[in-house]
């Protein structure tokens, strides 16, 4: 099966180190930051949500407790009044039939009842008025506290109210008159029963101060929880603090609120909806908060985390760029230096550090220098090997045998008195000696010239007067300059055999030596057959090649000018690439070989 990651790994491996480092650090830092950020966001989101809901429910519960307290107070006041025997007697109509009661007694009893009602309407701010009416509706007594314009007598609707009150079987019941969909007047009602036979004897009505109920959410409702509604079991709004109650009174939502209390989130209206149901009376306190407000902290937190991620990524990129530059620059330098070495040149890389990269660079510098040496050494080795081949051919004739023979010929020529033979043999012998001991041993130019004289002397036997060597030395000091042995002789040999050998006129070879711009120039000019331009160009190109190119491409080819090329390579290897031979020539006119070598020996 194909590894699905192989492609990714490939892409990764092919990435430049700089990118790699950037991506790795992104992964290392951003992934934990994102994961931690995400997880803490989720956790804090849940936490904030739970906290807000609990806070809101706690507020509602506090309101519920306060409201229950208010209601309980009112209930217990009404219970107090039920314990009052004067009120009971009056409702029972006992005194109206009691022949023993004088009108003064009656007056006193009425006064006592008035006082009792006053006591409550004055001392209890939650009660605006108290009203009693007998079952037979023949007697009613009441008390307003006159804090408002409302008149309890006008507000009481006996039939309506007693019907509601009866449902409580003596317990307190609530009755509201509605105005604009909201409760206008709040009444607490109780049917009063006979203590002996439990038959209905009257009705008690409290007009309840609505403001007191409003105090249940005073100091509790903050900006986020402004929308509070208290609702009766038949969905009438008893108290409301909400500007838009229709939002809360959605019928479908009310159906879900039968439990003791709880919360739900309305996704359509984007609100959190909390409620608490009271036990007695069976009212509900509801409130809603826009989710926008609820989640404000969460959204802020999210923005913060995102900003943090972006900032981290930005800083990370900056730091990473700086660090990777520090790493990558020396590596890049190494890369460039390696490319240079591939081309054959060597240049030391600057090292400004002592870490592993510094060590690698230093080691690389040493290594490349070593390689450069080895390459030079290998080239010399190749030339030496060629010359060794030559020598091997030369050595096919035993040199001692040749020397002995030449000495015998010299003796014989002297005995026979043929000095020409004697001279020639001596010259030949001198040349051979030089050739046999051939290496890059340095000799003064003077000696080199002597060898050339001997060579020409030998050639004169063949060419007679058709060959002439003209030596020009600019300054005698030049003759003392040292050059590798037999460096010029092969050029003379080349001029003789390829230049003037086949001409009909006298062959003149000029050997000029002078110093120009701190370089020793030796020119060999012959008036032989010359060369056409193409040949000159080709030959010069070969001569101008650097050692590397030359040895890789041309060294093993068989060519005429092998002698010149060898001299040229010897100079380049010995003194450096910028030195060597240069040819100028005109067909049937002349050929000039110009040798340039440094005055100072540059070779190592």
């Amino acid at each position, binding site marked *: 099966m194909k590894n699905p990651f192989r492609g990714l790994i490939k892409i990764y491996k092919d990435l430049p180190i700089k990118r790699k480092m950037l991506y790795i650090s992104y992964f290392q830092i*951003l992934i934990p*930051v*994102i994961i931690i*950020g*995400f997880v803490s*966001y*989720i956790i804090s*989101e*849940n936490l904030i*949500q739970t906290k807000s809901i609990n806070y809101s*429910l706690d507020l509602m519960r506090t309101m519920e407790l306060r409201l229950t307290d208010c209601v309980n107070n009112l209930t217990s006041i009404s*219970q107090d009044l*039920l*314990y009052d*025997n004067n009120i*009971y007697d009056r409702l*029972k109509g*006992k005194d109206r*039939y*009691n022949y*023993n009661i004088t009108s003064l007694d009656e007056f006193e009893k009425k006064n006592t009842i008035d006082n009792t009602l006053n006591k409550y309407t004055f001392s209890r701010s939650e009660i605006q008025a108290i009203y009693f009416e007998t079952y037979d509706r023949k007697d009613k007594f009441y008390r307003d506290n006159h804090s408002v314009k409302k008149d309890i007598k006008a507000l009481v609707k006996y039939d309506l109210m007693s019907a509601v009150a009866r449902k*409580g*079987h*003596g*317990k307190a019941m609530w009755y509201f008159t509605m105005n604009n969909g909201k409760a206008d007047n709040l009444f607490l009602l*109780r049917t*009063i*029963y*006979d*203590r*002996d*036979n*439990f038959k209905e004897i009257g009705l008690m009505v409290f007009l309840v101060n609505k403001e007191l109920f409003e105090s249940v959410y005073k100091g509790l409702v903050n900006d986020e929880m402004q929308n509070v509604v208290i609702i009766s079991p038949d969905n009438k709004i008893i108290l409301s603090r909400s500007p838009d109650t229709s939002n809360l009174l959605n019928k479908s939502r009310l159906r*879900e609120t039968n*439990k*003791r*209390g*709880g*919360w*739900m*989130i*309305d*996704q359509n209206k984007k609100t959190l909806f909390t409620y608490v149901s009271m036990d007695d009376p069976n009212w509900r306190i509801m409130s809603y908060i826009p*989710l926008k407000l609820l*989640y404000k902290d*969460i*959204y802020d937190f*999210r923005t913060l*985390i*995102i900003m943090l*991620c972006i900032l981290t990524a930005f800083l990370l990129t900056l730091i990473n760029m700086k660090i990777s530059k520090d790493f990558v620059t020396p590596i890049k330098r190494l890369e460039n230096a390696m490319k240079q070495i591939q081309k054959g040149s060597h240049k030391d890389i600057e090292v400004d550090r002592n870490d592993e990269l510094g060590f690698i660079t230093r080691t690389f510098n040493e290594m490349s220098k070593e390689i450069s040496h080895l390459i030079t050494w290998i080239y010399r080795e190749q030339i030496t090997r060629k010359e060794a081949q030559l020598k091997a051919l030369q050595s096919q004739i035993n040199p001692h045998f040749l020397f002995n023979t030449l000495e015998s010929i010299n003796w014989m020529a002297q005995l026979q008195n043929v000095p020409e033979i004697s001279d020639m043999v001596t010259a030949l012998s001198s040349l051979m000696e030089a050739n046999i001991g051939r290496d890059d041993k340095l000799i003064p130019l003077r000696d080199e010239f002597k060898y050339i004289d001997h060579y020409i002397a030998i050639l004169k036997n063949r060419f007679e007067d058709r060959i002439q060597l003209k030596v020009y030395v600019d300054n005698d000091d030049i003759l003392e300059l040292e050059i590798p042995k037999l460096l010029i002789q092969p050029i003379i040999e080349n001029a003789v055999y390829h230049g003037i050998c086949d001409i009909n006129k006298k062959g003149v070879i000029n050997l000029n030596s002078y110093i120009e711009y701190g370089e020793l120039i030796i020119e060999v000019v012959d008036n032989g057959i010359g060369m056409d331009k193409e040949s000159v160009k080709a030959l010069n190109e070969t001569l101008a090649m650097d050692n590397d190119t030359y040895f890789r491409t041309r060294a093993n080819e068989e060519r005429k000018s092998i002698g010149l090329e060898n001299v040229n390579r010897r100079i380049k290897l010995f003194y450096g690439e910028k030195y060597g031979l240069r040819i100028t020539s005109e067909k049937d006119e002349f050929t000039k070989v110009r040798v340039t070598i440094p005055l100072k020996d540059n070779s190592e």
Partner: protein
Amino acid sequence: MLSITLLSSSCVNNIKPSDYVDFNEEKQKTELRFISSWGGIDPQAEPLNMVFNEFMENNKGIDIINESVSGEDFLTKIKVDFASGFDPDVFGLWPGSDINALINAGKVADLTDVLSQDPEWKESFKPDAWADTTYNGLIYGLPFERIFEGLFINKDLFDQYKIKIPKDFEELKKAVLAFRAHDKIPIALNYSSEGTFLYQNILASLAGKYIIQNPISGGSVKDCYIKAMEYMKELYTIDAFPTQEMVNGMDNKTRDNMFIKKDAAMIVQGSWFIGKIDHDVDTVDIIPFPTINDGVAKSPSLVYGLGCGTFYMSKNAWNDKEKRKAAIKLLKALTSQKSAQLFALKSGMISTINIDRAGLNYNYLTQKGLQLIDNAKELIGPPDSYVDRTAWEEKIVKQFIYVLNGKREASSVWNDYLYDLRMRNLIE
């Protein structure tokens, strides 16, 4: 980019529509509201609270709200509570007109089935007690507290002044005169409900068991009710009671202390009074009430019946399944042998529960009381159990002093009583 996507998506996904939780509410306790006259200074208040505390300790889910009040206030409270839908769940009430009215109004739960389902419990009560809590063949109440009334005397004072312990009404008058001669209050008495115990005992001796149970016939009270007041008046005239200045505003506690502190020689009290005598018990005695010569009751007779420790469950509590279970549990605990022993130990209460009396160390007075019960030739129910209690309180108890000092006629206050009953449609 990744983080932004993750974060923004999370916000939407996390809120699911109609997330809905209920309150993490602790389980609501079942509350039982209890009323009896065993509150405040009543000797039974302490053992009652001990029983309740132990019960709540063993039943963590039940809370008892004990609203017992002692004295006369109790009756008003329990009646108004029932009349205003504020029914207690479990309550104690002595036999008489009030419990009858409550039962008739369907406010009291029928316990017949509950008792028959637990025969062991039912059989722990003395069988003769059930008669007083059975109405139309159905058992409504648990007869726990047995009471009797008797004449308590300070034996030491009689010994000190060498005064004969009275056997009949004439001897009682002689003793009164003798104590007055020694500047001692002969009989401790005030004009509260409990102050009428002397009257009730005279009445019981005069009337006998049958008449006491049926005080009214032909639209008027039996003669003995008026006659008994005359006997009282006779004692009042010879200064048998504390002077008018002392009696003004005297509460029950002061009256009782008058006897306990040996300022008074005699007091007619109920068996619960034994619990209030906490020292020098052996200087006190209970004697059969002095015989009244023209009385119908077989001497020695004894006023004997059930006290406020007769327990009921309201219909309201019965209709609430949780409360019914809890209330039955409470009633069983309240009338258990353990509870009976505790009440006997703490206040000397005599219960109708079959308990081993040997281990109880009843004090001398309780033992004497038990002896009186055993020796009585006629056990007569407390007269105030058979009158209309409300009218009794309003028209008789409160008017008693006016009868004694001659400002009102005995027949007149009883007429008021009858008028009240008529007004409340209790009689024709």
